[in-house]
C-alpha cells in the first residue's frame, strides 16, 4: 500500500485581472471616491457594500470608464493593454474597450436598455457596436446570450417595456455577457425585485459564474446578495474603503465600527 502523497500546493502566480490604485473622483469640492485601491483576480467575485452615497456606484461607473477620474491608476490585464492606465485613454479607446471587455448591469434597466426595441435587439447592440454586420450571426448570438441568462426565448423579440423587472434584468445580463467580457460589473442587480425573483436572478448569476468563471464586481447594499455571490468584500464609507477581506470574515467578524454597524443593522 502506497502512502497518499498529496500534490504539492500550486503557487498562485497569476496576475490580477484588474488593479486600481488610488482612484479619486471629485464633484466640485465633494470627494465621491477617495483613494480607493483594489485588486481582482480572474474568476473572482468582489462585493462592494456601503450605504447610499458611499461612492460605490461612482466607483463602478469609473471601472466601466463612463465616469472620468480625478487621479488614480486603472489597469486591466488584457492583451496589449496591460501597460496602460485606462483612466488616461481617449473616449474612442474607452468606448472600444468598454464594448469589447467590460459588461455592466445597471440597477435601473432604463439606463442600460432601449425599452422600445426588441430584447434580442438590445443584446445584438453589443454585437453591432463591436462590428458584427451579419444578421444571422447577430440573431444566433443574441439568442444564445439570452438563453444563458435564463430568459424565456419565446419572448426574445418582446420590447423590455413589456417585460417584468426580473426579465429586464435578464436582458441586461444577456447584453452584458453577449461578447463574453473579461469583467462583469453589476450595480445593485437585484434591488427592486421581489425576493423570489431576486433568488432566481442570483441563481443565474451563480451558474454563469460557475460555468464561465467570469470576473464580477457586485455593488449592493443587500448583504444577503453579497453573502451569496461574493468571494471577497469591500466596505465603503464616504468614498473610502474602510474594510476588506473574505466575505465570511467581514460579514461575521467585522472590525471597523462602520462595518459592524452595517452588518448588525437589521430591520
Amino acid at each position: 500500500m502506497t502512502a497518499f502523497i498529496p500534490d504539492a500546493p500550486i503557487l498562485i502566480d497569476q496576475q490580477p485581472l484588474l488593479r486600481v490604485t488610488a482612484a479619486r473622483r471629485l464633484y466640485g469640492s465633494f470627494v465621491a471616491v477617495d483613494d480607493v485601491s483594489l485588486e481582482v483576480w480572474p474568476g473572482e467575485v468582489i462585493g462592494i457594500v456601503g450605504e447610499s452615497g458611499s461612492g460605490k456606484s461612482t466607483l463602478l461607473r469609473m471601472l466601466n470608464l463612463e465616469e472620468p477620474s480625478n487621479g488614480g491608476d486603472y489597469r486591466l490585464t488584457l492583451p496589449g493593454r496591460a501597460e496602460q492606465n485606462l483612466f488616461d485613454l481617449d473616449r474612442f479607446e474607452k468606448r472600444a474597450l468598454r464594448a469589447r471587455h467590460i459588461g455592466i448591469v445597471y440597477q435601473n434597466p432604463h439606463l442600460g436598455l432601449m425599452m422600445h426595441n426588441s430584447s434580442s435587439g438590445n443584446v445584438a447592440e453589443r454585437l453591432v457596436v463591436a462590428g458584427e454586420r451579419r444578421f444571422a450571426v447577430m440573431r444566433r448570438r443574441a439568442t444564445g446570450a439570452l438563453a444563458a441568462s435564463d430568459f424565456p426565448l419565446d419572448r426574445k423579440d418582446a420590447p423590455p417595456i413589456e417585460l417584468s423587472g426580473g426579465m429586464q434584468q435578464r436582458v441586461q445580463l444577456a447584453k452584458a455577457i453577449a461578447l463574453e467580457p473579461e469583467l462583469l460589473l453589476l450595480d445593485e442587480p437585484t434591488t427592486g425585485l421581489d425576493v423570489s425573483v431576486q433568488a432566481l436572478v442570483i441563481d443565474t448569476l451563480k451558474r454563469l459564474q460557475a460555468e464561465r468563471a467570469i470576473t464580477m464586481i457586485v455593488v449592493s447594499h443587500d448583504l444577503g446578495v453579497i453573502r451569496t455571490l461574493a468571494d471577497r468584500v469591500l466596505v465603503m464609507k464616504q468614498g473610502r474603503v474602510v474594510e476588506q477581506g473574505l466575505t465570511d470574515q467581514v460579514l461575521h467578524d467585522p472590525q471597523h465600527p462602520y462595518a459592524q454597524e452595517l452588518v448588525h443593522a437589521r430591520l
Partner: protein
Amino acid sequence: MTRLSTLAGTWEPMSYAFLDASAKREVRRRMLKALAIPGHQVPYASREVPIARGWGTGGLQVTLSLLRPGLRVKVIDQGADDSVNAVNLRRFMMRTAAVEQTTDALEADIIQSRHRIPEETLAEGQILVLQVPDPEPLRPIEPDMSTARQMHGDADYGRMWLMLYEQIVRSGRVTQGAAYPAMVNGRHVMTPSPIPRWDLPKLHMARHITFLSAGREKRLHAVPPFTDVRPLVFDDVPFAVEDHATLTCAKSGLRGTFMNEIPLDDGGTLYETSDTGLAIKVLSTQGGTPQPIGTTWYPVTETQP
C-alpha cells in the same frame, strides 16, 4: 465729384433670383463646403422665401443661388412636373430669375425634386437639388442632436444596423421605404431625402452633383460626382429595391420604371410611370412625334399598353 447715384445700381423691386447677394453667398459657401465633405451636414443660414417651411424652402434656396439667365430648370414633385407645388416653384424661378423651364431630364441644367431622381441617367454638369424634410439619419436612434453630431464625428454608426435588425425581426424584411440610410464616401451616413429605395443606387458613382437641403432644419449636404454611395445593409441580407420592375405602366406601356399605384373603383389597381417627364416623351414618340430618350438607370422596356 462722383454722384452717389452713379455708383449705386439702378433700383429694382427685388434681387435677381429673389435672394439678396449675402444670402446667396452664404448658401454657396455652405454648398462648397458640403461638396468638400461628401455626406456631411453643413448648417447654413436658411432665409425666408415666399413659400411655407416644409414645401421645399431648402431646395429652393439652393436652386435660387445657382440660377443665372438662360438656364433650364426642371422641378418635380412625386415624379410629376405638373403637380401644384412643382408648378409653383418653377413659375417662381422663371419670374424672379428669367430661366427657362423644361420637363426633359436630359436637357435640364438644374433639377429640383422632392421624392424622385429621374429614371434617365443624369450627366456631368447637371445638378440635382433634393428637398429634404429631415437631414439627420440618426434621428430614429438618437433623439439628442448634440449626441448625434458627436456620433457623426466618431463615425459611430453601429446602431443604424440595430434599426434594420428591428425591422427584420418585426416584419421579416427591411421595411425602410424612403430615406434609406446610405454611407457616403465610406465616412458619413446620410439620409437621402424621401426618395424611395429604388432611386438610392442611382446616387452611387453618379456623374451629376446632388445637393440635399433642409430649409427648416437649416442644414444641407451633398454628393459630389463619382462618389461612393452605399446603402447600409447586413452582410447576409442584400439590399433590395421596390419590386416595380415587373409592373407595366397603363398609359405608356413602360416596364422597369418606378410606378405610382392608382386604385380603381372596382378594387383593382393600375400602375403608371412615376417619372412623368419620361412618360410624356414616350407617349409623344408613340403618337408620332419622336423624342430623344436617354439611357435609363434600370433597364426599361416598352410593351403594348
